[in-house]
Each structure stands twice: as structure tokens, then as C-alpha cells.
């Protein structure tokens, strides 16, 4: 950000003077002034190429000039005293003629087009005034391609704006969607039918101004945009916390689209976030409470009777003997309710010891005053990045996309030196060629960002920590006193050289390798780099789950799974365990799980879907899903963000409400033994009461009421409608059940309404259900909601960063057992997988079809030692757990280690790794 981009210039548009930001282009300036100027090829995040000729304006030499000359607004930089006209007859006519030519071949299929009603081409055609096709010739047609389970293809609709390939190749780094053909026969597709490889392919649906690429799962049970009941939501499939708009109808989630957030996801989502919602509509969903007393058949009971039964358990065993397991996938409110019910000392987090400590180190490091954790938007400004121990494309896909943008900074800088503005997309790319800002990836299993990284190393997790420490020492000019081989030391020097020129260096690490020491080492490296570059220390961590940060702020780091296991095994008294939205037994060694199950008198599960744990439980309390309730998640940078229910579930309660009801029962039955936190929870009726409870909890949460407007928020006395003003079928949608219309459900937990009545304007950024503006039916309408184009939303981007800087230095890390390899053992390390690492999104059939087959990767030399052959099955043992996988050779893998896919349902769960395993070849060949 240099000073002149912040300066303002005065331009005259249609005889009125406006002040606009210098350095931008005219189109951006006009849209920023809420003017309607049509465009297709320009995209706020991808810049201008000037190919569609839609944004023509008339530019005048001076006040005397009445004829002017035509210019494409997206390719014209603003300058002081510029005089332009949008409404000049010549420009208007030109725009109309351009649309007419585009429409000459556009098919007559809007009624059967998934984009119809939210189509940028429809909007721009109307805006330009073109109405009648005068050309009488035949329309061009194209054959379509099968692009896999997520994206549909209808090439007839293409207007050749090139946005798809510019996003897919230039922005997201994909290489299998290309421009084919020549002249007027250009074709946007793959070289042959097949699934699109990119993890960001879903964005093509929103990037395409018309319906060439459409959302296939949504198309299967399609509704028009105006018929969707939408709510602002937060993605729960990784720790980034991208903002989503969830569209639902008739009690089913129909689709997810991007909800712009200036600091986080911007305009793009990953496919896991976009398509991972199917679990919500699953037939398997738990719909009622179930009580199965021991040795008796299952009795389905009603809600009140179940709470009674659980209450009896508390009375029977004594409150001190009821333990609880919170979840990093559940909202902070749900976890807090559980913690308030059982007490802090009985509340455990569903994370392993290493994970828990790593997470706690993250929180402490990010609270240091000298360290700044950048948002994704800021990550895009870094010009030297080192990624330690994370395969970012799998663990935090959206962050990987930001890293990819950051790698362009060298090119942008070089282009700026010769006077090319950053939005001159094609010119910048031609000038840059392949030069990139240095990206260094240090992982165990390899990084999928290899194509943009200057250095791509594969080391074992403990070596990664040593590498980081060595690099820090080297930067400080101290000798590296670490037990690294000489060739790795050479790489340390190479990495230091690469990062030497960075003005805004960034260190990215994370908890997926379960190494608390790496977390601290990464923080020291970021301080070292900052010292060298004379800048702020930028440090970002990717965490394991959507609310890992929230859970770590709530729970004591020593209250982890192993501790719980110990407590259960050593307790002389009978115990009960309440498990919140976690498949607890899946984390365990098979034998250990059975043993603990036998020790427990009662197992109470609060969940939305059945799991091994819920099948073993004697009480199951069905709860509402994320799309059916309100809650708050704290993302990887400590930003608390609220999600809202898209629709009212028929009979399910959010987990916090069931827990509050249970607590109310308890405090009424046993007023003497109830604790203060139980009494506080018993008072909670509505979501805002829960929020208040959170804000009183500790100082990190003190501004909890600022995360999003509370339920009393009104605009001119009105709530904000979840339904559009043209929501159809109100009097007939349920008429088959009863011709008398049912009452619209009331929402007492938020400022949103489950109806179409309410405020037509929407100034609260956290409460935008879906973007729409008169004349702008597509998601491009977002420019009417932004304070500046590609900048923050009006009223500021939603969410609240809750990590205060603390003066106290981080505590000394706990001593954890050091992993030692015995003879005949291998170090098993997990590798994140985009589509089946996270249990909820892995249920989506569209994503399941895109999973690659699971293999165990190993270095060929190590494989030879253990008599393993490529393609053959190997049996992997960890404790009593066994896993059979085909072997795959990877000569980049570190020696003596074995890379296992982090599938959520794997017999050896990723949270138990890294660990020493034994392997045994089974003679049979993998099919």
C-alpha cells in the first residue's frame, strides 16, 4: 500500500463531481459510487482484461469537448479532472449492440437454466436495454462435457468472457480447464470428459456470468434464488471460518454460496465448504431422543422423558461423577452449556494430548503483543511465505488459495515499477512470466502447493521442528546446533536466502502434525524473520477443526482425551459420560474403547448423526445441526463469527437448549446441590441469554455481544427477512398436508425472521441472508453491499477478533513423551485429505465420489527393508488397531516413515499420529 493509492482524485461523471480513489480503474470507481455500469469479464478479485467490451463509457478531453471518445472503463485508470459520461448516447448504443451480438447465439433456455433469476447476463441485458434478437440466422451449439459430480456444463450458454479459465488457471492454479478451439469457435472445457481436479472448481458457478457452469447437486433439487430461505452462516469444515450463505427450502438445505467477507473468504470458497452440506439432509439424521436402558430393548421416548432420565443419572451417580466431552466442531455456546452443566473440572475436550497442547500453544503465541496473525486478505499481501508441517491445500484450502495469490506479489511489484497497475491482469502476467515471491513448503508427505513453491522439502515432523529452529538460529547469525544432516542444513541456508528479500514475511504452521514444539518454533521463526525484514511478525496457524480455538479458550489444556481415559480407568466410583457431537470411540484404540465402554455406567450422546459412539450410548439426545441453529465459532485467527439457522427444524433443539432444559430440571429437583454455573445456565431461555453467559465467562469473551447483532436488533422496527420478497408458494407449499396455512415459525433467537416480511434494506453486515439489489439478481450485487469495491462490507466486516494481546509471556510447554522408534517400527504420519478428513463433509456423496483412493506412501528404500512391494497390501498395526492399505512408493518421503491418509473413519485416526507402528506385508496384491 503506497501513499498514492490512498490519495483521492476528482472525476466528473455525467456532469457531477465525485472523489474516487486514485490508482483504480474507471469501472471500479463507477461501481464504487453505486452507479450501474454493465460488465462481464472484469472481476474485483481478478482484475481487468477488457475482452467483453461491455463497460464502454464516453471520455471527454475537456469541458469544451462534446463528442468525446469511447473507452472501456475497466481498462482506463482514473485521473484527476477526468470527464466521463455513462449515459452518453454513443456509449449506451455501443453497450446495447455488444449485448445484441452476445445474445445472437445465446440459447433460448432460461426456463431450464440453473442460473435463471440470478444471472449476470440477464441483469446486464436488461440494464443495457437490448430486448429483440434481430439476427435471424441459426444459433451456434456446442456439445457438453461431463465435469464430475459437482459441476454441470452447458456450453451453449457461453459468452466467451474468459472468466472461468482466468479463475481456474490464473487464480486457483488448476490446469485441466482450458480454452480450446479458435476464432469464434472457442470452447471452455477439459481435453476430455472427467471430473475437474481443482479443489476450488465450485467457484466456477459464481464466477461464470451465465449458466455454463452450474451447481450439479443443487440442480438435482433445484429452486430459484428467490425461492430459497437463506441465512448467513459460517463454514464448519475447517478452521478458516469462511462466510456462507445457506439456501434452504421445505426444511432442506439446497445449496451453499459464498457470502463475501472482506478479510476472510472474499469471493471464493473451496469445494468442501460449498458441497459439504449434504449431511444435513441425510436420511440417517437422528430425529428423536432415544433411551436404551442396559439389558433392555431400545425405547424411543419423547424429549421430556429423556431429560428426566438423564436427570436421574445425575441424581443416582452424584454430579461429580458425570463427565463431559466437548467438541471442537460444536459452537462455543454448546460447549459452554455442557461445561456449565458438569463443571470445569469434569469437562474435557475431544482432542488428543498432543493436539490439546499444540492448540494451547497456538492460543498463547497468538496472544503475544509482538506477533500478528494475518487474515486471509493480509496473507495475500505477504511476499515471502514459509509453510511448516501443513499440507495447506488439505487442512485449510482457502488459506492455500490466498498463499497462491501472495506468490504473485513479486510480479505485481515488478509490474508496478514499470507502471503497470495491479488490476491490468494480462499485462501483469505477461510482464511477470513465472517469477514468484518465495514460498517454502516443509512437510512430511509433500505439499500440493509444489507448483508455486521455490523450495519443497519433505522431513519427518520432529525434523521439521529442528529445521525451523535451525533456520531461526541461522537468521539470528547463530550456529545451528541441531542434529540435522548436512544436506538439510544446506537447505536451511537456501531457505534463509530465499526469504532474505521479503519485506512482509509470513510463517504458516498448524496443529495437524500434532507437534506442540513446532508451534513454538514457528513463532520464534516469525519473530526472527520480522527482525530481519524490520516488519511486524506475521504468523498464521491452521487448526484442526472449526472451533478448535474456541474450545481451547474454554477448556483447560490438560483436560484432553488421554486424561479422560485415565480418569475413567482409575475411578473407583461408577461414572457417566456426556459426549457432545463427537464420535469419541472412533478416536480410540479399539481395545481401549471397549474397556472404557464397560467402565462407564452411562454414556449420553448429544448429536445430530448416528456414530459408533451414539450406537453404544444408552441415551441419545438428537440435536439441531449447524444449519438449524444459532451459534458462534472462533476461527484460526481468533475471530468469533456467528452462524444463523437457515430454517426452523421440525422438532429438534440446539444442543445448548437441551442442556439448559436439563439443567433447569436439575436445579429444580436439587436446588441445594446445584452450582452457580448450573443456576446461570438454567436461566437461559434464548440464544442471547447464552451469549450473555459467554461474555461473563472470561476476558477473551467480554465483547461477545459485538460478534453479531442480538435478537433485539431491528431496522425501522422490522426484523430481517430470510425469504426474498418474491418467495413463492406460501399458500400451497404445505397445502397437501393441510389446506389451512400454518403459522410462520417465530425466531426468538435472532434478528432474522423466517418470513418474507421485514426490512428491505440491510445495513448489518453480519445479517445478510443473501445478496440482492434492484437490477442485480446475481451474486455480483455484492458491490452494492461493499463500502468500497473488494474492500470491507458496509458497516465493517462481520465477526470480532477476540484474542487480546497479553503482557505475560507464553507459559513453558508441558513435557510430553518423546516418540522413540524401536527396531522394526516405522514412524506413521498422517496426511490430510480434502474430501474425507472431515467427518461431516465426507458424508456428501458429490465429494465422496471425488476422493482419491487411500494408499500408504513410503520411501522405496524403507519399503525394501520391510519387504513391501508397490501396489501390495500392507497391514499396519498401532496398539490393537489394524489397517490394511495398498503401498505406494514416493522417493521424496523421509526414510523410516509411513504416510497414512487421514480419513475420518480410518481404523487409525489421524489424531493418534505421529506414532510408531509396525507393518507387515500381506501377500495379496491390491486389486
Amino acid at each position: 500500500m503506497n501513499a498514492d493509492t490512498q490519495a483521492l482524485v476528482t472525476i466528473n461523471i455525467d456532469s457531477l463531481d465525485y472523489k474516487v480513489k486514485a490508482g483504480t480503474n474507471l469501472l471500479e470507481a463507477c461501481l464504487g459510487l453505486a452507479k450501474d455500469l454493465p460488465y462481464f469479464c472484469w472481476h474485483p478479485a481478478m482484475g481487468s482484461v477488457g475482452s467483453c467490451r461491455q463497460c464502454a463509457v464516453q471520455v471527454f478531453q475537456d469541458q469544451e469537448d462534446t463528442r468525446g471518445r469511447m473507452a472501456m472503463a475497466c481498462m482506463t485508470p482514473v485521473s484527476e479532472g477526468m470527464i466521463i459520461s455513462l449515459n452518453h448516447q454513443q456509449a449506451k448504443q455501443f453497450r446495447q449492440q455488444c449485448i445484441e451480438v452476445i445474445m445472437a447465439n445465446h440459447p433460448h433456455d432460461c426456463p431450464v437454466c440453473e442460473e435463471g433469476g440470478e444471472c449476470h447476463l440477464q441483469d446486464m441485458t436488461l440494464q443495457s436495454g437490448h430486448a429483440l434478437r434481430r439476427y435471424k440466422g441459426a444459433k451456434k451449439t456446442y456439445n457438453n462435457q461431463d465435469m464430475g459430480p459437482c459441476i454441470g456444463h452447458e456450453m451453449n450458454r457461453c459468452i466467451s468472457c474468459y472468466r472461468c479459465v482466468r479463475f481456474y488457471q490464473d487464480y486457483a492454479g488448476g490446469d485441466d480447464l482450458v480454452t480450446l478451439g479458435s476464432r469464434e469457435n472457442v470452447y471452455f472445457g477439459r481435453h476430455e470428459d472427467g471430473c475437474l481436479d481443482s479443489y476450488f472448481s465450485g467457484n466456477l458457478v459464481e464466477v461464470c456470468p451465465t449458466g455454463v457452469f452450474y451447481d450439479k447437486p443443487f440442480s438435482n433439487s433445484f429452486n430459484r434464488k428467490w425461492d430459497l430461505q437463506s441465512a448467513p452462516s459460517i463454514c464448519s469444515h475447517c478452521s478458516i471460518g469462511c462466510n456462507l450463505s445457506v439456501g434452504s427450502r421445505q426444511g432442506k438445505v439446497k445449496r451453499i454460496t459464498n457470502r463475501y467477507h472482506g478479510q476472510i473468504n472474499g469471493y471464493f470458497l473451496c469445494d468442501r465448504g460449498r458441497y459439504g452440506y449434504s449431511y444435513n439432509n441425510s436420511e440417517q439424521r437422528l430425529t428423536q431422543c432415544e433411551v436404551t436402558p442396559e439389558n433392555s430393548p431400545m425405547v424411543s421416548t419423547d424429549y421430556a422423558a429423556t431429560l428426566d432420565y438423564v436427570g436421574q443419572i445425575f441424581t443416582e451417580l452424584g454430579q461429580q461423577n458425570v463427565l463431559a466431552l466437548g467438541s471442537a466442531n460444536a459452537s462455543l455456546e454448546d460447549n459452554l452449556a455442557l461445561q456449565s452443566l458438569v463443571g470445569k473440572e469434569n469437562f474435557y475436550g475431544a482432542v488428543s494430548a498432543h493436539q490439546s497442547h499444540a492448540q494451547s500453544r497456538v492460543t498463547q503465541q497468538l496472544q503475544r503483543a509482538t506477533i500478528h496473525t494475518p487474515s486471509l486478505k493480509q496473507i495475500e499481501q505477504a511476499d515471502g511465505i514459509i509453510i511448516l508441517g501443513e499440507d495447506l491445500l488439505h487442512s485449510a484450502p482457502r488459506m492455500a488459495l490466498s498463499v497462491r495469490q501472495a506468490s504473485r506479489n513479486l510480479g505485481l511489484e515488478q509490474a508496478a515499477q514499470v507502471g503497470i497497475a495491479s488490476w491490468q491482469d494480462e499485462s501483469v502476467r505477461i510482464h511477470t512470466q513465472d517469477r514468484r515471491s518465495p514460498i517454502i513448503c516443509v512437510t512430511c508427505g509433500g505439499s500440493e502447493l509444489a507448483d508455486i513453491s521455490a523450495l519443497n522439502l519433505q522431513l519427518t515432523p520432529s525434523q521439521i521442528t529442528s529445521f525451523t529452529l535451525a533456520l531461526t538460529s541461522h537468521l539470528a547469525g547463530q550456529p545451528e546446533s541441531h542434529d540435522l544432516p548436512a544436506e538439510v542444513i544446506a537447505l536451511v541456508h537456501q531457505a534463509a536466502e530465499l526469504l532474505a528479500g521479503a519485506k512482509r514475511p509470513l510463517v504458516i504452521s498448524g496443529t495437524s502434525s500434532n507437534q506442540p514444539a513446532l508451534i513454538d518454533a514457528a513463532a520464534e521463526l516469525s519473530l526472527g524473520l520480522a527482525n530481519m525484514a524490520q516488519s511486524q511478525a506475521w504468523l498464521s496457524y491452521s487448526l484442526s477443526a472449526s472451533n478448535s480455538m474456541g474450545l481451547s479458550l474454554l477448556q483447560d489444556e490438560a483436560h484432553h482425551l488421554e486424561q479422560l481415559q485415565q480418569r475413567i480407568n482409575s475411578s473407583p466410583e461408577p461414572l457417566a459420560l456426556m459426549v457432545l457431537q463427537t464420535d469419541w470411540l472412533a478416536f480410540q484404540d479399539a481395545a481401549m474403547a471397549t474397556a472404557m465402554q464397560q467402565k462407564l455406567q452411562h454414556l449420553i450422546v448429544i448429536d445430530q448423526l448416528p456414530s459408533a459412539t451414539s450406537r453404544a450410548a444408552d441415551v441419545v439426545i438428537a440435536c439441531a445441526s449447524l444449519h438449524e441453529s444459532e451459534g458462534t465459532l472462533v476461527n484460526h485467527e481468533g475471530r468469533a463469527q456467528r452462524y444463523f439457522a437457515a430454517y426452523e427444524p421440525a422438532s429438534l433443539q440446539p444442543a445448548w437448549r437441551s442442556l439448559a432444559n436439563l439443567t433447569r430440571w436439575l436445579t429444580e429437583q436439587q436446588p441445594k446441590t446445584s452450582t452457580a454455573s448450573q443456576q446461570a445456565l438454567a436461566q437461559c431461555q434464548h440464544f442471547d441469554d447464552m451469549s450473555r453467559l459467554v461474555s461473563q465467562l472470561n476476558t477473551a469473551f467480554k465483547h461477545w455481544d459485538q460478534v453479531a447483532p442480538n435478537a433485539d436488533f431491528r431496522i425501522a422496527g422490522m426484523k430481517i427477512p430470510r425469504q426474498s420478497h418474491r418467495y413463492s408458494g406460501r399458500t400451497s407449499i404445505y397445502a397437501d398436508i393441510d389446506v389451512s396455512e400454518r403459522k410462520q415459525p417465530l425466531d426468538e433467537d435472532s434478528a432474522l425472521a423466517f418470513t418474507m416480511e421485514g426490512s428491505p434494506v440491510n445495513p448489518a453486515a453480519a445479517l445478510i441472508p443473501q445478496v440482492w439489489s434492484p437490477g442485480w439478481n446475481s451474486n455480483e450485487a455484492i458491490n452494492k453491499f461493499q463500502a468500497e469495491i473488494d474492500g470491507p462490507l458496509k458497516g465493517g466486516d462481520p465477526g470480532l477478533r477476540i484474542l487480546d494481546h497479553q503482557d505475560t509471556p507464553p507459559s513453558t510447554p508441558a513435557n510430553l513423551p518423546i516418540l522413540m522408534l524401536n527396531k522394526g517400527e516405522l514412524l506413521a504420519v498422517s496426511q490430510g485429505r480434502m474430501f474425507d478428513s472431515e467427518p461431516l463433509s465426507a458424508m456428501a456423496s458429490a465429494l465422496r465420489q471425488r476422493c482419491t483412493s487411500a494408499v500408504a506412501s513410503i520411501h522405496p528404500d524403507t519399503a525394501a527393508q520391510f519387504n513391501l512391494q508397490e501396489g501390495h497390501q500392507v497391514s499396519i498395526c498401532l496398539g490393537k488397531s489394524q489397517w490394511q492399505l495398498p503401498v505406494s512408493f514416493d522417493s521424496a518421503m523421509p526414510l523410516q516413515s509411513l504416510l497414512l491418509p487421514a480419513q475420518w473413519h480410518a481404523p487409525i485416526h489421524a489424531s493418534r499420529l505421529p506414532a510408531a507402528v509396525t507393518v507387515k506385508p500381506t501377500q495379496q496384491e491390491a486389486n
Partner: protein
Amino acid sequence: MLKKLLHVGYLIWDYIYSNLLTLWTVASHTFSKADTVEYPDQMPYLAPRFRGRIVLTRDPSGEERCVACNLCASACPTDCIALQKTEDETGRWSAEYFRINFSRCVFCGLCEEACPTYAIQLTQDFELAEYQRQNLVYEKHHLLIDGPGKHPDYSFYELSGKAVSGRAKGAGKHEAPPVDVKSLLP
């Protein structure tokens, strides 16, 4: 006294006169033309554009015309149309369910105007009365008729450019054969 007698006499006359007048008027109508019709033995005249019961029509080849585009539902001022799109294996869109709540319908005809495929049409039938209000909810199988209705020749899929069963890309009206991407010929 006289005054009183005269007044009573006037009242009696007035009474008799009024009754006689009424009788005369009624009797005189015996010979005039009746305003009512003998419904249902005699059907009333309906204008050609009369808007009665809504039907869903089929295209000339006998396929359902409705492509479940939702425009009728969004045009409906009483929101009494609800439907859900589904798709067959060849890519042809149709309605999974199509429901009209006739107890809410005002027969304004906006759905017919909005329909891009001439599928939904208002007919001359107005005899919809039911004893149970629930029976006024018409599902797709109640609405679908066998013929094309008012526009006998129109077939949307011939003009849409979309490939559906029996019609490949480029085989519709006003369509060129699919572009050969690999050709370099001018």
C-alpha cells in the same frame, strides 16, 4: 274528527294501492324474459378469454410441457402455486410435484402470462365447488391434461438448444450443428 277520518281513509287507500301495485308488477313479469338461466341444464355464455380452472398441457409429442421453471409460482399474487423441479436421465426438466391451492386462486391468469412454455393455461371450466376445502388442492395428476391446449404446435425443447431425449445438440429449430472444436477450417 273529520280530519282524523280522512287520515285513516288515506292510510287504508295507501295500503291497498301499494299492494295492488306490487301484485301488478309481479304479475306483469310473468310475461317478460327471465334474467336467470337454467343452470346446470343450460350453460351460461363464457367469453373466449374466460379464465377458469388451471390445467397443465402437453407438447405436440405428448410430453409434459412444464419444465418447472418456477415463473408461474413467482408471478402468482396469492402464492398458491408450489412446485419442485426434477430432471430425467436425458436432461429434460419437469415438475416433481406441482400443486395449486384453488381455495386461494383468484384466476388472474398471471401464471399463464408468465409461462415460457405455454404449459399452464386457464380454461373455461369454472365448476370447482367442493364441500371440503381440502379438495380444492390440486396436484399435478389433477392438473395435467392430454392435449396441447391453446397453442397446438409449440414445443419448448425444439427451441431451447438443450439436448434432451430424442433431440441431440444442434437438432432443434434455428440451430447450427455442434461446433467442431478441433477444426481449423475457416
